């Protein structure tokens, strides 16, 4: 048995002369929860459909448990999908919907009843067997869709933004339920979302996707603490992107000149060449602000804005050279007012190089 449940090798796909997928590579292990994270149009749904067999790639291979299934029809793959709009069969009740795949396989009545009961309990919909899809709420429909896909006991489950249509509270609740479910069943999940919180909460690994390419693949903490590109840094969480010139590197620390100040960043496993421009990401919550009395210090800035966004207090400061940085704090106010002079600093370990051209290692 192959180590990976799924392998994508150099998948490309174009629609009407537009390149939608530009060479994707991915391995997913058994029982892993992988999230494809990206904004609309980046190609995540297309990728999912190719894995499911509803689209065929222009080139590349799809391997399920080591076997090449690139040309296999969707009904022959041991993969099931939970569709974004649930796609429940409107003319069948809940039981018929969920048991559909079992009837296709000509399982006998007892087997179907047993499995049906099992999976409905799993999604907490026991007793709803006779209801029609039109009688269900959004959350209930979604559970039916999940149950329908799970009853087959596939080795891989694909979920296309399943929580998108639900309200915030329900979404949070379902996130937890799905994660628990996944761990319990030990089935590999490939989950699509544009919501970074969801991705960070649920995944074993996140694939950040952008314009048909996998920008970075890593665990939530890798993605968050060691983003490889400025896109990833800004897409997941809030980050400040800072440019400077490398002065030198020693062990895991790098000294960088920004303007006429020298700051320290970490190397994140890269080998940065001196006298070269480099880009760094520092997360808003890691920006330290202190009262600044003398303007000579290069990273002295003036507070230009204080506002509440995303549950945190945002403080925007403007440096001498007109560059803006954003700091974030909990709470609703801070001791600085708009117009105050503050000095900006950070712990070296929180400044990570991004967009490095050499083949670098992103994180530990």
């Amino acid at each position, binding site marked *: 048995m192959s180590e990976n449940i799924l392998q994508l090798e150099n998948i490309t796909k174009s629609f009407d002369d537009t390149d939608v997928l530009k060479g994707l590579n991915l391995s997913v292990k058994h029982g892993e929860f992988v999230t494809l994270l990206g904004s609309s149009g980046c190609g995540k749904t297309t990728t999912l459909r190719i894995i*499911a*067999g*509803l689209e065929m790639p222009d080139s590349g291979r799809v391997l399920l448990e080591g076997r090449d299934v690139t040309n296999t*029809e*969707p*009904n*022959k793959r041991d*993969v*099931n*999908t939970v*569709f974004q*709009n649930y*796609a429940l*069969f*409107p*003319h069948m009740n809940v039981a018929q919907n969920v048991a*559909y*795949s079992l009837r*296709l*396989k000509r399982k006998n009545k007892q087997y179907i009843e047993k499995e049906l009961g099992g999976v409905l309990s799993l999604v907490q919909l026991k007793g709803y067997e006779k209801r029609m*899809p*039109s*009688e*269900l*709420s*959004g*959350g*209930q429909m979604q559970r039916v869709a999940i149950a*329908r*896909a799970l009853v*087959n006991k596939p080795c891989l489950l694909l979920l296309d933004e399943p929580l998108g249509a639900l309200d915030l509270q*329900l979404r949070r609740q379902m996130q937890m339920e799905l994660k628990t479910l996944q761990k319990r069943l030990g089935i590999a999940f490939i989950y699509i979302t544009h919501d970074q919180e969801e991705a960070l909460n649920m995944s074993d690994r996140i694939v950040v996707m952008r314009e048909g390419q996998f920008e970075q693949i890593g665990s939530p903490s890798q993605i968050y603490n060691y983003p490889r590109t400025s896109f990833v840094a800004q897409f997941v969480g809030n980050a400040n992107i800072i440019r400077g010139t490398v002065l030198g590197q020693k062990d895991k620390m790098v000294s960088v000149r920004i303007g006429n100040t020298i700051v320290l960043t970490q190397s994140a496993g890269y080998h940065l060449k001196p006298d070269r421009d480099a880009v760094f990401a520092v997360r808003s919550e890691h920006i330290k602000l202190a009262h600044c009395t003398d303007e000579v210090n290069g990273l002295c800035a003036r507070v230009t804005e204080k506002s509440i966004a995303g549950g945190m207090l945002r403080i925007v400061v403007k440096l001498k050279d007109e560059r803006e940085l954003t700091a974030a704090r909990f709470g609703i106010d801070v001791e600085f007012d708009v117009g105050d002079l503050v000095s900006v600093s950070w712990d070296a370990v929180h400044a990570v190089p991004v967009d490095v051209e050499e083949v670098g290692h992103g994180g530990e």
Partner: protein
Amino acid sequence: MKRYQKLTYLYLSVMMLLLYLPIVLVVVYSFNESKITSVWGGFSLQWYELLFRDQAMFEALKNSVILALSSSLLAAVIGTLAAVGFTRIKPWSKGVVEYVSMLPIMIPEIILGMVFMAYFAMLGLRFGMLTLVLAHTAFCIPYNYMTVKARLVGMDKSLGEAARDLGASEVRVLFDITLPLLAPAVLSGTLLSFAMSFDDVIISLFVTGVNVNTLPIKIYTQMKTGVTPEINALCTVILGATLMLVFFSSVLHRSRAVKSQPAAGDDAVKEELK
């Protein structure tokens, strides 16, 4: 606009009256005792009696029903399958085939009739029920195809994909998902085809055999020769049947519309019930 309301009602009423005038006359005179329509001889059901004893008439009716049933069902199968198939595969020839299959309802009936007659003669086919069914199916298919196609356009594609994803072959998708959901459209298309076939005069005249009479042909020939009020009675009966059909289909239409509406109720209420 409100000013013209009275005028509107007046105009529409007058037009409606004119529209119904011939029909009403036919019905009224079917109960006429006298044979000559200009003279009202009193209420009588004698023409209905005559009608029900007319063997030839029943023969023609039977033929019409068989013909309409066969043609509309055949057209339903061919048209529906094609409409469904074409949503998934679109070969380059699709446009051409669609257009050509629509021609029977775009060409004047007289020409179509003539064309079929010449063609069947050339093929050496015996004129009769077979040629009738073939010709009728040809002009029934467009009705089925268009009705089903219109319904398919609005149908959710992901349902078929979900079924495939769960393990269904294309055939299974057709029978389990597509056809059940298409049922109303298939039915109304078939009803339409049935009506078109049942009512057809011209084409039937051309492609029928000597011994095969359809109802419209019988009525037509009788109209041309001598007119007896028996025709009135026949027309009234058919009218009654039409009325029932129209009523029936509108009831069906309304109940389907209600059923396919998702429960509009409060989502919040449903959440509480969870």
